[in-house]
């Protein structure tokens, strides 16, 4: 018996050795193939939309802001993010902690941060403006920060959250966008080559119905629930009084917190976020329109902004002297001692002390009392009170 086990372990060892060799070879081969060909994009954009207003829809704003925070932390600058929030939760009169939007209960993580740049706020978040941003048909007076200036080498992330139904998404409690309009908008973007690849994430009830009608190439879609299912919210905070996040985005945020700009996690891991046991609804995804294999698509291809780099090999020999018109003025400036501008976004959720779960102590006392009175009879109650 021991001899057989010894042979088995040697077989295992040799197998793992050959496997690691093969894997290493494949990795080396891919590295030498050049980083230009893993993805075809040179820049990243993100369009993050929260479509519901009123204080009790706090969680939708928190959803959008947590995706905004992750996307900014992974490198996409504000100039490449179009953030649309239909209502202002941070400065709402009912917010007990003004200028904050929390995503974890017990106020562990403030996703509002210090440098949020909201491009479309309040009543500007309409179906018309959303479609105008996507298709580019904005009036000429629109400033640069409100435009989606993507080109044929841009990877775009589109995140929608709010209240939805079978085939539609509700905007501002007064209008709807249907899945046909959305699919047509994406087709117009494709016709004008306004994207290289597009990742569409939606966190609403019956979210999968919104990506059913897509027909343009290079689209990948994720939804938090199937048709006929509701997406549920995660947990309320008793001090703020509303539900703070939706389940799917909560676990998505947890997943994204582990991603850093150089990580190699791919889309197959993203599809596994929030299984039915945690989400209660069944998240769905659609990859048939996407040309690349999802296993080879990095998370940072959409959520981050990893630039391609080329070393400049040449220089031009310039010999003409500069003819400067005005002479250089020397100013004597004094500079204050200043800490380097640190990344304020890098705020991990604070680890609170462990408390027993809510209601546990109450239940425990109830149990003790019940056992006591069971054993000794109810007539002793009058001695207690």
């Amino acid at each position, binding site marked *: 018996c021991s001899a057989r086990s010894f042979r088995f372990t040697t077989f295992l060892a040799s197998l793992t050795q050959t496997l690691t060799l093969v894997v290493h070879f494949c990795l080396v081969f891919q590295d030498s193939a050049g980083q*230009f060909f893993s993805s075809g994009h040179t820049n990243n954009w993100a369009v993050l939309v929260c479509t519901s207003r009123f204080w009790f829809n706090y969680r939708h704003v928190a959803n959008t802001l947590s995706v905004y925070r992750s996307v900014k932390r992974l490198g996409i600058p504000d100039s490449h993010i179009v953030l649309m929030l239909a209502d202002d939760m941070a400065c709402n009169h009912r917010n007990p902690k003004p200028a904050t939007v929390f995503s974890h209960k017990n106020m562990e993580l403030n996703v509002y941060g210090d440098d949020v740049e909201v491009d479309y706020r309040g009543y500007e978040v309409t179906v018309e403006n959303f479609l105008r941003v996507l298709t*580019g048909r904005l009036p000429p007076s629109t400033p640069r920060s409100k435009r989606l200036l993507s080109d044929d080498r841009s990877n775009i992330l589109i995140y929608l959250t709010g209240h939805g139904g079978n085939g539609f998404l509700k905007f501002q409690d007064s209008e709807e966008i249907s899945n046909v309009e959305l699919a047509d908008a994406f087709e117009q973007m494709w*016709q004008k080559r306004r994207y290289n690849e597009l990742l569409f994430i939606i966190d609403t009830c019956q979210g999968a119905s919104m990506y059913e009608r897509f027909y343009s190439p290079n689209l990948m879609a994720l939804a938090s629930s199937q048709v006929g299912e509701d997406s549920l919210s995660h947990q309320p905070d008793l001090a703020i009084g509303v539900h703070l996040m939706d389940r799917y985005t909560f676990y998505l945020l947890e997943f994204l917190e582990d991603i850093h700009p150089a990580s190699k996690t791919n889309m197959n891991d993203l599809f596994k976020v929030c299984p039915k046991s945690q989400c209660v609804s069944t998240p769905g995804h659609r990859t048939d329109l996407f040309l690349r294999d999802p296993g080879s698509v990095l998370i940072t291809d959409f959520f981050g902004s990893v630039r391609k780099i*080329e*070393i400049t*090999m*040449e220089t031009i020999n310039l010999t003409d002297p*500069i003819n400067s018109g005005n002479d250089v003025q020397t100013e004597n400036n004094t*500079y204050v001692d200043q800490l380097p501008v640190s*990344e304020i976004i890098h705020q991990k959720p604070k680890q609170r002390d462990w408390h027993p779960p809510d209601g546990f102590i109450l239940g425990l006392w109830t149990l003790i009392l019940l056992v006591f009175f069971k054993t000794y009879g109810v007539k002793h109650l009058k001695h207690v009170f």
Partner: protein
Amino acid sequence: MGAPWRTPERRRGKLAALSIAAMVILVGVPLWWKTTQTYRAWLPVAQINELAKLQLQLSADVEVVFARGTATPEQQKKVPVTQTQDEDHAVDEADLSLHRLSESPCGSLVIYVIPESSSLLPENVNVYIGQRRTALLRIGAQMKVGKTLKQLLAHLEPRVKQILQVMSFSHNDITAALSDRVRFSPDNKESIADSMRAFKSSPGYEITFSLLNPDPKSHRLHWDIEGAVQTYIQPLLTKLSPVANFSLDSQILYYAMLGVNPRYDSSRSAYILNADSLAHVINPVEARLGSNAASSNPVLNFLLYVPDAHHSPLYIHDHKKREVQTNAFHSPRWGGIMVYNVNGFYQTGTNFPVDVNINMAKVMGVFLAQLRLLLGVQSTAPPSSFQVAPCGSSGLADWELDRLMWSRSVENVATATTTITSLAQLLDQIGNIVINDNIAQQVSSAVTSLQLAVAELEVGNLGFALQYSKEAILASEKAFFDPSLLHLLYFPDDQKFAIYIPLFLPMCVPILLSLLKIVSEVRQRRREKQAKKD
């Protein structure tokens, strides 16, 4: 037998019902149809469909001049020789003087064929490409006496073609320019990298020069950016003005750090930035760079980073761990960054802050090279027996400009055609988008400009072709992105019924019922008549 239908009231009733029904059908329905119609101005759909086929023909004028000693007297008699030259000067002077002889318009080339024994070109070089639109081609050794004209031309043709491919356009270049429409089959990596690196054709670009000073307490930097731009960059931009408009600005950013920590290399006693970590340098800085809020033109950023005193000197290493001569790198479709070390200008122990004057010639040399790459000027390396003259003080040779203009014209024509055809398709598919007059006018002018551009490309007038293609693209983009073309008008059929039924059903029911009653009465009358006859 009482005839109930004969009474005057019944007759009046029938007439009333019939006239109301007539009104509704003859007047009401056409009126409703007309008033609920969307206004759609006429579009030249037939011409658009014809343009969609997009058959381009490009022709470039090439003038081949034979120098003395290349063609035998018999051959000379047959070929209409324009001039003969005998040059002893150095090759670049020859090039210049030859250029003055025949000022060639843009898009055309002049190739001078020189004898085998000529000393103008060094040994291993067969072709010399000049700064303007001229090239010198050394004839092969086998073309001695005894060969016919046909053989001479047959010998020359592939060489001339090769020169054309380098100086004007090649199949790869045109396919790359048409990458929107043509499925670009990648046969070599450089062409993919080229197509990803250069900016797409746009009517204007913005160039921003930024000086990053993370340590103002130690270094007080002075850079004469205005003079440098005027002397070094502006000539290039002026030369490129037929291609696009450029707007320039500059800024100085203090306390702007790179996002990565450089490694200290004790063997060189310097700090090193690896090629792998360069990809993460740009993002933290980009958040702090501004851009012009009013325009939507693509932005080219050129950053000059002066490392702080504690991390000087800072060198960049490439993938093979070798030091990079220029100490600069660039990112496709974004811009370039150069690291400029100033620790050599002062000794340690001097009083900080130190005044440093930046050598703008060196800096602008690197930025100019990066600018050429990003604008798509640089092409793939020419074949080995070619020698290319260094570009002049403007940073751009004439034939490079021509090359850029060829690919830009083709790209513009292709993009404008795609835009117009997809717009026509969209307007066709969605029946209830309003097409205003100004959109129709833009579309018509775009179609006209496209047709003119294609015609000019066929003839070879590059300047006009580029101008028409630019007009075409401007008009087509204006028409496509017009804010009024929003098809927020998706009405499913059941919604249409739901709107019209409460309006029209109560009105139509009495009319229909009375018509039915009239018809049944007429039929009954006829049956009675029939019965009477029998």
